[in-house]
């Protein structure tokens, strides 16, 4: 090493020493969202939500007198990568908390790191019930997302309202689909004993052609379909099903955020009229209070009129942390866990509570019938009317 680079190293070292000194005044939140790969879009928007929250808090003077810093790493929608990045955040960036995750496997991977490193992790999007099943559950993991129990049961409630009696299901042949199936079939049997499941279709992972399943369902003679063909897959499914007259023949209730405004906008006329779908957020459901403020902020940030649904997910996930830190008056892990258990917060989409026994938020979702909007400024399908299906009675 020559003299110059020695000097340089010295400067860097002293710089990092100053940084370390200032560290006590910052609360670091490690955000793990995919910003590349197949779930990039969800990741980018969710990260934006987390960052908006941090900006708001910092502008208002911080949290317990400390500024918040959000440090992001790309989880690439791959569990091994997410594991490495979660460790990277903890070991190198010395973050105090982790938020994020999209797929169930990434959620599990981060949860495992959070258990080893004894760092709180708020699962923003992973839904699969495995993550909080007794053998995997631990005190450092919390879920802000609605889980598949809530989602499947909400769909059963709607199937009941629509008076479906002969039901077909089409669910993806991986954990998300199977967990939805358990919740849906159990709940429909309870609330609508006369309904019968006549056919179950399980499209395989990575499939892009659903026609065989569509044909089987149409031949099964059911009057209603419960689907877990989620938003990323739905455009292909809808375009393949529509020419068969599928959506005219059956009532269609679908989980997986198919009702999100960005999906409806992108699909345009290809979004089938009259299906029932859900979303974490629909900007048009109310312009009042916190929701209106959040939407306005998002419109400004993104420069669009019709705002997407995912930012609020990242916002609320991080909000659990900040509110718990405020309540605990400290960012010590045990104190924050204690504060999180049973915590109630006001989010842009209404009040929520974090259940103490299994660390599951009572996150419901918006459900509605997708119909062509009469509003000229929004010439797409939208939920009319929008209803928020409350999770409390559906969680177990």
């Amino acid at each position, binding site marked *: 090493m020559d003299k110059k680079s020695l000097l340089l190293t010295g400067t860097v070292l002293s710089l990092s020493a100053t940084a370390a000194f200032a560290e006590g005044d910052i609360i670091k939140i490690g955000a793990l969202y995919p910003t590349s790969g197949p779930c*990039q879009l969800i990741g*980018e928007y969710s990260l934006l939500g987390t960052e908006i929250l941090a900006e708001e808090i910092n502008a208002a003077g911080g949290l317990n007198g400390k500024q918040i810093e959000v440090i992001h790493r790309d989880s690439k929608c791959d569990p091994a990568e997410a594991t490495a990045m979660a460790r990277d955040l903890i070991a190198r960036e010395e973050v105090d908390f982790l938020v994020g995750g999209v797929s169930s496997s990434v959620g599990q991977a981060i949860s495992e790191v959070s258990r080893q490193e004894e760092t709180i992790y708020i699962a923003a999007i992973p839904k699969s019930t495995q993550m909080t099943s007794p053998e995997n559950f631990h005190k450092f993991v919390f879920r802000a997302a609605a889980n598949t129990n809530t989602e499947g049961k909400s769909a059963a409630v709607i199937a009941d309202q629509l008076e479906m009696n002969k039901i077909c299901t089409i669910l993806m042949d991986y954990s998300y689909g199977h967990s939805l199936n358990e919740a849906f079939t159990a709940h429909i049997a309870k609330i609508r004993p006369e309904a019968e499941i006549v056919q179950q279709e399980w499209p395989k992972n*990575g499939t892009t*052609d659903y026609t*065989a399943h569509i044909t089987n369902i149409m031949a099964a003679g059911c009057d209603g379909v419960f689907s877990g063909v989620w938003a990323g897959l739905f455009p292909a499914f809808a*375009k393949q099903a529509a*020419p*068969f007259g599928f959506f005219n023949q059956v009532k269609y209730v679908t989980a997986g955020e198919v009702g999100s405004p960005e999906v409806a906008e992108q699909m345009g006329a290809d979004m089938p009229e009259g299906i029932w779908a859900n979303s974490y957020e629909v900007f048009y459901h109310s312009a009042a209070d916190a929701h209106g403020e959040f939407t306005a902020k998002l419109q400004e940030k993104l420069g669009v009129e019709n705002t997407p649904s995912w930012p609020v997910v990242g916002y609320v996930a991080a909000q659990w942390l900040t509110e718990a830190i405020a309540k605990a008056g400290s960012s010590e892990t045990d104190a924050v866990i204690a504060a999180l258990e049973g915590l109630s917060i006001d989010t842009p989409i209404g009040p929520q509570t974090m259940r103490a026994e299994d660390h599951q938020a009572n996150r419901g979702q918006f459900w509605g019938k997708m119909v062509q909007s009469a509003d000229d400024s929004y010439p797409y399908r939208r939920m009319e009317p929008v209803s928020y299906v409350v999770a409390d009675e559906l969680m177990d």
Partner: protein
Amino acid sequence: MFDNPMLTFIQLLNGLSLGMSLFVIAAGLTLILGVLRVLNFAHGAFYMLGGYVCFSLVKLLSGVPGGFWLAAIGSAIALAGMAYLIERTMLRHLYERDHLYQLLFTFALVMIIGDLVRFTWGTQVLSVSLPPGFKGAVNLGIAYYPSYRLFLCLMGVIVAVGMWYFVNRTRAGRFVRAARQDREMLESLGINVGRIYMLTFVGGSALAGFGGALAAPAVALSQGMDAEIIVQCFIIVIIGGLGSLGGAFLGALILGLLNSFGVMLVPNFEIVLIYLMMVVVLMIRPWGLLGKPEAQ
């Protein structure tokens, strides 16, 4: 399952139309593989790019009659042009190199094209609507069937016949066949083998682009669609026989039909079954169902 003839009939059409749309893509792959001996992992990325180019062209040509069809042809041309550039500037320097380096080169292409798509079209799932006149279903006497899927069946057959004619009945096709069998011989006859390679790569890539454009109204455009299709194409090419056009046709049909009847017969293990089939074919007939064993 066969107690309902109408259901069987529709499933047959489902399988055929899927198989034919896969064939258009796999045909390009097998052509390149047969002549250039390059295992082109980027073929799926070319397919994806074809779909996205089609999306933009459809938008650009909205209002123009036959816009979608022009867009589909435009995608094929765009991909041909890109393949030409790739071949002239880079790939041709690798023909003499170990197989491994060609493979690595196609990996690099996959990554770059993936980013290119992301940069240009963003990360939303994009959707190309069915072309006008093909939005509905056709009455086939015993059942209605979506007209676009029927069109895909037809297109597969047209591409198959066209390629068969080109390879077996034209002068250029003869050279392609000869290059597939013995490139040294062809060289010693004073024929510009490099040119044949270039044309094959360009033609195969154009097919990938065309396949992507045709698929665009039937599926959704998203990142990752390249990784899905390339595995399927490999399965087709392996089952049918590396480099064999007829084999690719047969392989595509098998995969398509397995997709529609597999979900009825073995709903749970379809995914395992496909790979098992690939293994078994390679074990007992490594040169594929319709390929010819090579003198080793």
